[in-house]
C-alpha cells in the first residue's frame, strides 16, 4: 500500500469514528490531483462520454481501463487539455486543462499512445530538446539512466527498438520533473520482457512520489501497478476500486479444481462438498467455495483417508480479467 493510500485509509477510519471532525478533515485534506465531475464529451451528435466522475489523489497510481471506443482516450485527452469538455467540471492540478496556462503544463508529463521519434536526433538530443522547454528540468543524463537508456544516448532515436523508444517517451515525459504523469497504454505491443522492464520504470516513478494516470488493456499490468482502478464502458464508469476489490472481486467464490481416478466413487465424498461439485468435459472437477480453508481441509482429509490422489489440484480466485470482462460485457 502506498503512503497516500495508507493516509487515505486512516482518514476514512478517522472520519467514520469521529463524525464531528469530518468537516475539518475534508478542509485539511489536500486538493486531489485530478477531480472530474459530470464530464460529458460530444462529437457532433455522438456522445462519447456520458457524465463521469473521477478523483485521483496525490501519489496514487490510478489505472483507467476500458475497451476500445469506450471513451477512454477521449477522457484522457480532456484531462491533458487537448480537447474541450462539452459539459461538467474538470480540474487537473487545480486548473481547467482547456484554459490552463503554460506553467501548468510544466507540472505535467504525458506519454502519448502513439508518438514518433524526433527525426534525425540522437536519444540524448531528444531529451535535451525537451529539457529546454521546461523552466526547471531534471538532469538529462540522470533521466536517461532512470529509464535505462544511458548506453543508447548517442544512438539515433529512430533506430531504437520498440521498447527502448517507449522508454525514451517516458524520459521525455519525465524531463520536466512533473508531479502528474499520464501513461496512455505504455506497453501496448511489448514482448513480456520489455513489459516487465517498463513496469520497473513505473515502480521507479512510484518511488519518486509521482501521481500516475495509467490507461491499459492489460489486466495483469493494472493489477501489478495500480493502487486504484476505474473501468469505463460505453462512456460510463461501471466499476471503481482497488485491484483486489474491483467489481466485488473479493466477494466472489473461489474455484477449487482437481482430477480423480475414474474408479473413485464420488458418493463417498462428504455431502456438503458433493452437492457443489461439477464435472466438465475434460473430467476436471470444480468446486465453488466461499470457505476455502474448511472445504480444502474436508477434501484433502477425504482423499488421504481413501488413499486417492487429487490430480492437478488448483485453487483460483477470479482474475481481474474475469471481473473486467464481466463488467464490460454488460453494456
Amino acid at each position: 500500500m502506498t503512503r497516500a493510500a495508507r493516509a487515505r485509509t486512516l482518514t476514512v477510519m478517522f472520519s467514520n469514528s469521529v463524525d464531528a471532525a469530518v468537516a475539518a478533515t475534508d478542509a485539511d485534506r489536500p486538493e486531489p490531483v485530478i477531480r472530474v465531475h459530470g464530464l460529458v464529451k460530444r462529437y457532433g451528435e455522438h456522445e462519447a462520454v456520458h457524465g463521469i466522475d473521477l478523483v485521483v489523489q496525490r501519489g496514487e497510481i490510478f489505472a483507467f481501463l476500458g475497451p476500445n471506443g469506450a471513451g477512454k482516450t477521449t477522457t484522457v485527452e480532456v484531462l491533458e487539455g487537448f480537447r474541450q469538455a462539452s459539459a461538467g467540471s474538470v480540474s487537473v492540478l487545480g486548473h481547467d486543462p482547456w484554459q490552463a496556462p503554460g506553467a501548468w503544463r510544466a507540472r505535467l508529463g504525458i506519454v502519448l499512445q502513439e508518438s514518433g521519434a524526433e527525426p534525425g536526433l540522437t536519444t540524448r538530443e531528444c531529451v535535451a530538446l525537451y529539457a529546454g522547454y521546461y523552466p526547471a528540468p531534471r538532469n538529462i543524463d540522470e533521466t536517461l539512466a532512470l529509464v535505462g537508456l544511458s548506453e543508447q544516448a548517442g544512438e539515433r532515436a529512430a533506430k531504437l527498438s520498440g521498447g527502448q523508444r517507449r522508454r525514451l517517451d517516458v524520459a521525455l515525459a519525465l524531463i520536466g520533473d512533473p508531479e502528474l504523469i499520464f501513461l496512455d497504454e505504455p506497453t501496448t505491443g511489448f514482448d513480456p520482457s520489455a513489459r516487465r522492464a517498463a513496469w520497473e520504470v513505473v515502480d521507479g516513478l512510484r518511488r519518486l512520489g509521482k501521481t500516475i494516470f495509467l490507461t491499459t488493456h492489460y489486466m495483469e499490468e493494472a493489477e501489478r501497478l495500480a493502487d486504484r482502478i476505474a473501468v469505463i464502458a460505453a462512456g460510463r464508469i461501471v466499476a471503481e476500486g482497488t485491484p483486489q476489490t474491483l467489481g466485488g472481486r473479493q466477494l466472489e467464490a473461489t474455484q477449487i479444481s482437481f482430477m480423480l481416478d475414474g474408479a473413485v466413487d464420488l458418493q463417498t465424498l462428504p455431502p456438503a462438498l458433493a452437492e457443489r461439485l461439477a464435472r466438465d468435459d475434460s473430467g476436471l472437477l470444480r468446486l465453488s467455495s466461499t470457505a476455502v480453508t474448511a472445504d480444502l481441509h474436508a477434501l484433502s482429509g477425504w482423499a488421504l483417508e481413501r488413499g486417492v490422489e487429487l490430480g492437478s489440484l488448483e485453487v483460483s480466485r477470479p482474475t481481474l480479467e474475469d471481473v473486467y470482462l464481466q463488467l464490460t460485457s454488460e453494456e
Partner: protein
Amino acid sequence: MFFLIKRLMRLWRARQLRAAPADAGIAAGAGAANVTADGPSAAARGPLAMVLHEAGYDLRISLRSPRARFMGVAFPIVLLVIFIGVFGNDHTLVDGTRVSLKVFYVPGILAMSIVVNAYASLVISISGLRETGVLKRRRATPVPASVLIAGQALATVVNTAITATILLVVSRLFYGVTFAAPALAATACTTLVGTLAFACIGYAVSGMIGSQEAAQPTVQMTMLPLWFISGVFIPITNLSPALRDLADVFPVQHLSNSLHLASVHATFGASISATDMLVLAAWALGAGAFCAWRFSWLPAGASR
C-alpha cells in the same frame, strides 16, 4: 559543405563538453559516473533563448535529413549546372536589359531553392511531424506555439541562407556571374521576405493536408507548374500574356521577379521590388490567418 558544417558542430559540441564543470557527477542521484550538469534550461533563460534552442534542433533535424539535403541544396545546384550548360549561350531581356541566360538562371534557381526550402521541405516535414504525433508531444510541454513556429522559421531562414550562399558562390566561381554589393543586399532582403512568406504558406498548406502520404504530391502539384510560369526555368518574356497574368496571382512570380531585378541593377532601390514584397507579405498574412483558423498540432487521423 555539409561535411564542413558537421565538423563545426562536432567541434562545438566537444567544446561544450569541456566547458562542463568537472564535479558535475556529484549532482547524480543514481550514482551514474558520466552525468554532466546541464546549466539553466532554455526556458529558464527567456523566450529568445527558447527560440534559438528550438531553431538549433530544427536545423540539426533538417541538416541530417537526406531528403532536405537533396531537395534543398543538391537539386537546385544540379539544375543550375544543367540549365546554364544547355542554354547558357542564349540571351533574354530582364527589366529591359539584355542579359545572358547564365545571369537569368542564377536568381531563377535561387527563387526555386527558396520555395523548396521554405515551402516544400516545411510542408513535408510538418505533416510528417504532425501525423506521427511529434507535434502533439511537443505541445504537451509548456513550450508556447509561437516559440515552435519562430524556431522553425528561423531554422528555415538559416537553411535558405546556406543554400543561397552556395548558389551565389558557385555562380561566381564557375560562371562569372557577379552582383553589385547593394544588389546583393537587396537579394538578401528579398530572400528573407520570400523565405518567411513561403514558410507561412507552408504551414497553411500542411494544415490542409490530411495525411503524410499526401504531402509530397500536394507539394509537387502546387510548386512545379508555378516554376514554369514564374520566371524560374523560362523567362516570362517567352510566355503568353494570359500565362503571365495567371502567374502574377501566385507568390513565386513575385519572389523571382524581385530576385531578377538584382541581377541587372546596381543600386539597392532598383534591385528590389516593393510591390512584389507587398504581394508576398499579403500571401503571408493570408496564410497566417488560415493557420490561426485551421492549423492543428494533433494528427488529422486522431482517434477518439
